[in-house]
């Protein structure tokens, strides 16, 4: 890796330069088979066990389009408010690389299946930023190279690569934005929010598992700087394969700082691809765009055009599920959450689990209280997702039901939850087994109250003298004596009765 690179502080950089971003997102479709052949798609298979003559590019093999993949591409296009082409075709993108066994990638070039769309993206503070979509096109994934050698204890200089073609030919949809202008200092946040919004849409459409950590969704981030928003676009770099929301944000920030330093030094930004380094949070120079980028695209002669009928497109449009942003707005209305509360829930990835908890009978406020409080802390401590905690939405609904019915109070409910998390059963069972129910029988309460009054005659005098302040202390003593199992409201009533 090269020596230290000059960087301009981010705030300083965006004060003097206007960043313009462009994002290309590849999503692997969750079809059962590949784009052009019937090889099964399965994550984590043994190397080269999911191939056919087509995905290996063997002579004479002929591709046939996966109809389900076309349907998924149309769904994505419609969800992104795109036009769907009346007719479009595939093209060969020619280049030599061992992970592309045919020596070309079957893609779409001049005729994408979807074009001219937009996506309204919600930023952290609730502001809506519109990202314009240039196109979404169908293509196929490449195989996987593993580089071996060098430091691996092997003979010096014996570096080589191993290729697994299981991934070669998996259907991809690539979504390309127009230049995203006007984001200013918020460019990194817009980039992150956009990729996240896409991920949510892929999942809502059920076209992909869209798991970032598996590389189902991969982003290439273009960035250029210019002196002012009305200046022509500057020279851009393309940072490849940025594979988490946070990395998308960091990669944009880094490139802003780096390019600002280049421009400050009266240098020129080189148009090139750059590699993102997750561990160090920097980008390094990759290929310079040159002749090697001449892909000699030409129409794929082995495939006939895709011409989705308008009837089919409308049928697909009518079948689209509610979009994530609409759904969030609807749920927020139904649940009565404040904007900030809803944002926290969304950012915590707790929408589905709260929805399930409410569906199981919990109040929305109760569901939020548990999942965003006690359980969020527990998940953080244990480094787990909420959904992976050993407690179900049904159990939380039951727990909140016990609170609402007055059988337990919040403090007891937390103890009951502890029991549930410890595997002691449902809240109902834990409450019974641990004897956690609120004492609502006046007998034991009066005993405890009398004991508290006798123990603190000075407080009793004050209360009788009209100073109600010490009532809380008496109630506290009673709660302590009953190990928190008293109904505080009832205790107050009884104390007042006792003292006339």
């Amino acid at each position, binding site marked *: 890796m090269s020596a230290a690179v000059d960087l301009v502080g981010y705030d300083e950089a965006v004060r003097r330069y206007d960043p313009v971003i462009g994002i290309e997102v590849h999503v692997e479709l969750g*079809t*059962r*088979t590949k784009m052009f052949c*019937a*090889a*099964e798609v399965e994550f984590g298979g*043994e*190397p*080269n*066990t*999911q*191939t*056919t*003559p087509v995905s*290996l590019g*063997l002579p004479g093999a002929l591709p*046939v*389009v*996966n*109809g*389900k*993949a*076309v349907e998924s591409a149309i769904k994505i296009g419609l969800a992104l408010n795109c036009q769907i082409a009346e*007719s479009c*075709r595939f093209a060969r993108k*020619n280049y*030599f*690389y*061992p992970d592309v066994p045919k020596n070309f990638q079957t893609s779409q070039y001049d005729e994408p299946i979807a074009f001219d769309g937009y996506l309204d993206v919600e930023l952290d503070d609730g502001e809506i930023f519109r990202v314009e979509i240039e196109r979404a096109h169908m293509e196929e994934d490449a195989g996987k*190279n*593993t*580089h*071996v*050698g060098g430091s691996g204890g092997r003979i010096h200089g014996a*570096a*080589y*690569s*191993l*290729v*697994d*073609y299981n991934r070669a030919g998996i259907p991809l949809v690539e979504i390309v934005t127009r230049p995203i202008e006007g984001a200013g200092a918020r460019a990194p946040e817009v980039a992150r929010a956009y990729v996240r919004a896409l991920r949510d849409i892929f999942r809502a459409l059920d076209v992909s598992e869209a798991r970032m950590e598996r590389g189902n969704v991969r982003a290439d981030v273009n960035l250029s700087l210019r002196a002012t928003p009305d200046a022509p676009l500057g020279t851009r770099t393309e940072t490849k394969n940025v594979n988490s929301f946070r990395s998308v944000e960091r990669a944009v920030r880094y490139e802003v700082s780096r390019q600002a330093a280049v421009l400050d030094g009266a240098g020129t930004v080189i148009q090139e691809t750059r*590699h993102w380094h997750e561990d160090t949070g920097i980008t390094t120079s*990759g*290929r310079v765009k040159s*002749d090697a980028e*001449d892909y*000699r695209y030409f*129409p*794929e*002669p082995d*495939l*006939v*055009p*895709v*011409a*989705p009928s308008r009837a089919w497109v409308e049928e697909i449009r009518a079948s689209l599920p509610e979009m994530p942003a609409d759904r969030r707005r609807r749920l927020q209305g139904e649940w009565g959450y404040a904007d900030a509360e809803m944002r926290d829930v969304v950012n915590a990835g707790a929408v589905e689990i709260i929805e399930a908890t409410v569906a199981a009978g919990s109040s929305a406020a109760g569901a939020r209280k548990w999942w965003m409080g006690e359980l969020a802390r527990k998940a953080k401590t244990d480094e787990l997702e909420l959904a992976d905690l050993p407690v179900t939405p049904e159990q939380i609904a039951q727990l909140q039901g016990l609170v609402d019915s007055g059988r337990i109070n919040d403090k007891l409910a937390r103890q009951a939850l502890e029991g549930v998390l410890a595997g002691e059963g449902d809240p109902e069972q834990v409450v019974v087994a641990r004897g956690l129910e609120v004492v609502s029988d006046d007998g034991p309460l009066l005993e405890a109250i009398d004991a508290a009054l006798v123990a603190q005659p000075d407080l009793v005098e004050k209360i009788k003298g009209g100073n109600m302040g010490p009532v809380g202390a008496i109630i506290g003593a009673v709660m302590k004596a009953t190990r928190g199992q008293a109904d505080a409201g009832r205790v107050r009533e009884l104390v007042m009765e006792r003292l006339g």
Partner: protein
Amino acid sequence: MSTISRDEVARVAALARIDLAPDEVDRLAGELDVIVDAIAQVSEVATPDVPATSHPLPLTNVYRDDVPAEPLPVADVMAGAPASEDGRFLVPQILGEE
């Protein structure tokens, strides 16, 4: 009239990883000219009411159901590999990769 230059032939050959001798470049530039001229003649005949096509077949929307079929057996897959390791194709180090 030559519309295809030697440089173009050399460049496309390099992109296609085809090693041409100088006399081959000369010969191909001439031969490609003939082909390009022939296509130019066809273009003259084409009128705006003839839609451009990438394909001679009057077919669209040929799709396959998304149903898995038997993959090629691994032994057959690897039979074509000049070199392999751990069930994967072994290829020379790729330049420009770290």
